[in-house]
């Protein structure tokens, strides 16, 4: 129960809520509303040995794998879809054994989070049995249903240490507003021990209440105003996905870990002392304006993907 009146803090303080070895749930999904600024700060703070849980992710998980921050991945998908294909840093880390693979499935994850939210030791599920996920998750159990005689899988409660979310708006009290798909963020917020959030803008409570509270304040540990905090992923309607930057990221990753270090991590993470420095490095106001103008015409929008 987080009830302090003013939850604002610096990005450095925000990310310091994450400890080495934590189970971390990253909000957003694929190229949408990933808390990228906070993840870059996490890398700068050299936080390690994370266990990542989530559903469909891309550059967020791949970046952490490339930076060596991850010990275990229990995501259900990590990739760049038809955009660029496989997540190369993630793939390398899994194949070398640097990252232990504990892949999960979306609904199993949902049910595990729900068990935590409901204070239950487990939730039942019909699916999963018959697949090889049971080998990756020896903690799953089975039972014979006393009502139907069917066999059900019991997935244990999953209570991440920290949920890290990027939202559109917050008030000082920590109420969050997310526009568009919340993906698993609400589930993460309710299930996790701590919730830390970067937001595009802090606004007065009255204004936030009109937009609607997506996540009530008492779940939220700390917040940091971080405009463009999702870049290079999108935070519609404020800005679109930066495919061009992501393409350069992908090229850097493609030529191996050294290349990734030299051509991406160094210039865009380690050499940027903070988020403002990063925004300059990726092209500053000029670049951000292009991403913000996605809705000026269909042509401008489409150009972002060409």
């Amino acid at each position: 129960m987080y009830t302090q009146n003013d939850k604002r803090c610096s990005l450095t303080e925000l990310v310091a809520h994450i400890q080495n070895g934590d189970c971390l749930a990253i909000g957003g999904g694929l190229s949408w509303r990933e808390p990228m600024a906070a993840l870059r700060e996490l890398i700068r703070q050299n936080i390690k040995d994370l266990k990542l849980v989530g559903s469909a992710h891309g550059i967020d998980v791949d970046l952490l794998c490339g930076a060596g921050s991850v010990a275990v991945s229990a995501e259900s998908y990590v990739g760049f879809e038809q955009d660029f294909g496989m997540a190369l840093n993630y793939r390398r880390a899994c194949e070398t054994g640097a990252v232990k693979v504990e892949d999960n499935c979306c609904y199993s994850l949902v049910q595990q989070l729900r068990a935590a939210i409901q204070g239950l030791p487990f939730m039942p599920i019909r699916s999963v049995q018959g697949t090889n996920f049971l080998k990756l998750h020896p903690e799953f159990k089975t039972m014979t249903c006393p009502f139907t005689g069917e066999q059900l899988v019991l997935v244990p409660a999953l209570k991440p240490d920290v949920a890290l979310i990027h939202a559109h708006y917050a008030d000082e009290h920590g109420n969050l507003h997310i526009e568009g798909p919340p993906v698993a963020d609400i589930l993460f917020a309710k299930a996790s021990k701590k919730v830390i959030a970067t937001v595009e803008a802090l606004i007065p409570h009255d204004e936030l209440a009109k937009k609607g509270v997506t996540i009530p304040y008492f779940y939220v540990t700390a917040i940091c105003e971080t405009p463009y905090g999702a870049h290079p992923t999108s935070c519609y309607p404020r800005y679109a996905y930066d495919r061009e930057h992501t393409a350069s990221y992908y090229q850097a990753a493609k030529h191996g870990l050294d290349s990734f270090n030299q051509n991406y991590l160094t210039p865009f993470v380690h050499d940027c002392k903070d988020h403002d420095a990063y925004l300059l490095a990726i092209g500053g106001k000029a670049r951000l304006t292009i991403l913000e103008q996605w809705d000026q015409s269909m042509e401008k929008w489409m150009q972002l993907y060409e």
Partner: protein
Amino acid sequence: MNNINKIQTCTLGELMIYQIALSIEDGILAFHGFGSPLVQLALHLAKRNHAPNLVLVAGATYGINPSPAFLTPTTNDFAMNRDAECHLTIEELFDLAASGRLGRMFLSGLQIDRWGNMNVTRLGNDERISLKLPGGGGGCNLSADAGHVTIWTAAHRTHADEHGRRRYRLANHCDFITSVGHRTAEGLPRAGMPYRGAGPDCIVTDLGIFGFDQEGHVQLHALYPDTSVELIAESTEFDLPVAANLSTAALPEPEMVEFIRRLDPLKIHERELSPADRGRFFQLSGA
């Protein structure tokens, strides 16, 4: 109309989209997942044509019945979700499936075995992962829960390496069973499992259209104008029964082709195809 009159051929991608669309019943709820432009287009095509009452759930955004501005290469994008009629949450979509209300799901795999089991998790074994794949999203759950499953892959065709070895997409064995078909990882028949859904009933590949026989074994149903039983057998690791009424797959109407091209001006769906397959065209019958 002028545009449509000019359309005299369709591409392999367009044929596949049409064939996937044909597997979609009207009045059901169906979900296209992410990373699947052929399926995304097939759902919109089906809804516009024979399935106007389809409840179309967009992957990643969980928007219902959106009118995409244009297909984007990454699915969780406002362009894909434009003007959605309403929205589900992630848990609601999976609950609908688990309660038997997801009529059809679309799944793919890097390995697809004769029972329709698939692997999108990894190549290699428990000790050593030789290729880490992105993972299955919700495919594991949905393969058990969805009423029916359409399988698709645009990489059925295999090419022998210098040693004559092939890496089969339709393979004898899945290194990891991510999603279940008609036999479980332990070889148990699907009928004995407490699943909601009936499993896969259709496979659309770059080489042809397949169904499943009464045992739940993959069976060739239809060729494409430029494929043959032999060609398909060559690219299939397991022995492939051929349906008695083997046919040639129907091609889309010109207006369907036009619709696909309008919805996907960036040709995102071609990224699922091999460069060679992007050059395959079929003469439309009406032309």
